[in-house]
């Protein structure tokens, strides 16, 4: 999947001058991603709009620091995640961020080989309307798992970027993604909408 490119000097200059056309273009590119990040974190409607507006406020207040080397959406996601954390804190909605390691069966031996090799996904390949079913199954993931999965698979972000956005190490991110996929597989296999 194509990753968003860093801004060129010209684009950056236009952004700094608050050129209306440039702003409209960057809003159009970045806002769907920001909305998706909000949705993945359980923030929707006017709450999401307010957090995204606050994110842009911070971005424009701090525009001098943005050098265009990182993709704009990546930079914005970093700000938005802080806003989402503040929002949760204010609402007292801190929940367990991830399942404890110990409740999961370990998929690999100490040496790094499979403990239980994955079954062939043949039944899944015959699922009707897999996208819609996946959307339902995503509800069963923890917020970090869902965010990591969507940023990786839908937005095509790389591991380092997602790690910095979610404020987790790449090692932790691997665990999040692996568990997310395991849960999604279990959910999809349990749907019974197989041909």
């Amino acid at each position, binding site marked *: 999947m194509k990753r968003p490119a860093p801004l060129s000097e010209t684009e950056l200059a236009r952004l700094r001058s*608050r050129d209306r056309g440039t702003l409209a273009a960057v809003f159009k590119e970045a806002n*769907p991603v920001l909305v998706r990040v909000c949705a993945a974190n359980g923030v929707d*409607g006017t709450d999401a709009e307010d957090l995204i*507006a606050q994110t842009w406020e911070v971005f424009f207040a701090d525009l001098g620091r943005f050098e265009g080397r990182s993709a704009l959406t990546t930079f914005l996601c970093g700000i938005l995640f802080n806003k989402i954390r503040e929002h949760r804190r204010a609402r007292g909605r801190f929940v367990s961020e991830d399942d404890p390691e110990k409740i999961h069966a370990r*998929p690999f031996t100490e040496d790094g080989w499979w403990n239980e090799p994955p079954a062939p996904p043949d039944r899944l390949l015959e699922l009707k309307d897999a996208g819609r079913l996946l959307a339902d199954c995503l509800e069963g993931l923890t917020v970090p798992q869902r965010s990591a999965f969507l940023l990786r698979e839908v937005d095509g972000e790389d591991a380092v970027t997602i790690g910095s956005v979610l404020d987790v190490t790449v090692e932790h991110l691997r665990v999040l993604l692996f568990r997310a996929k395991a849960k999604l*597989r279990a959910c999809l296999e349990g749907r019974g909408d197989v041909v």
Partner: protein
Amino acid sequence: MSNPFGMKCRDVVAALDTGEAEKGFTRVRVFSHLLLCHACRMYFKFSRFLSGAARALGREPHSSVDLRKLEERLLKSHSSEAAPPGGRR
């Protein structure tokens, strides 16, 4: 299961999950491993299915946020120009 190019199943899965498997020499190492390892090949097949399903979700967010209204709000706050009559679209 042998260990071609020093990659174990855990490393291969991590590379597939994080996208490292698409880069440079890691790509060669991962695909060499996949040729020899049925279990990882099944994981790869599953991962590809999941990626396809995720793309089918589309890039449009499933949310009640009105993107057009949000864009207008942001342009009003941050644009150097006043909004043209009737908007841009």
